[in-house]
């Protein structure tokens, strides 16, 4: 069981690294916003893994809050882009 949890952590960390590369590369601002949203999704998955790892169920609450914040951030960024705020890609 321990080794499975470690492998899941490794896979999730590797995906965070790849998403972070896209966040730095991303040619336009919407690309970066999509990368940020996926980063938050991966953080939710990592929180679930950590809840299983430490055997504490309170971390599920953290996952709920992170998911909510990521959604609000994505919507806010989308409104900001659509209303034509100052952009610096």
């Amino acid at each position, binding site marked *: 069981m321990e080794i*499975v949890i470690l492998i899941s952590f490794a896979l999730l960390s590797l995906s965070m690294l*790849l998403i972070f590369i896209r966040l730095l590369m991303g040619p336009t601002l*919407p690309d970066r916003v999509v990368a940020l949203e996926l980063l938050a999704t991966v953080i939710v998955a990592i929180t679930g893994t950590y809840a299983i790892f430490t055997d504490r169920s309170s971390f*599920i609450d953290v996952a709920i809050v992170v998911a909510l914040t990521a959604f609000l951030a994505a919507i806010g960024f989308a409104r900001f*882009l659509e209303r034509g705020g100052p952009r610096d890609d």
Partner: protein
Amino acid sequence: MTETILNWVIALFMLSSGIFTLLAAVGILRLPDLMTRMHASTKAGALGVALMMIAAMLHFNDLVVMAKALAVIMFILITAPIAAHAIGRAGYFVGVPIWVNTVKDELFNRYDSDTHRLRSGLETEEELKAMKTSNKDKPRIRVTTKK
């Protein structure tokens, strides 16, 4: 015996969650333009989180945790398409370049870039006149993946 089987099932869910999330990450890194990247990130990412929450649900085997994990899954499944729609729409108005091999762009010349109003193509003449069309539609930029 039951414990062992349950552990195997949890391990299966956790590993498939990791693999799907990694797939989403590879997709967002390797695909050519915004729309295809969004297609990779939304679906595979949501599936990865859902599988991990199912694993947590089975691991804790508690009604409260189960309800919370189900709430996370429902929330992700509801909000991921909404956020993707909002970002995709904003990207279309901003004029994000699309892939050079894109076959179809059905919104092209249909969106009024000032009022953000979509023409269906089935309007009568009077309706089109009343809509005071502005012909400032930006041509969609097409990019090649090879730099």
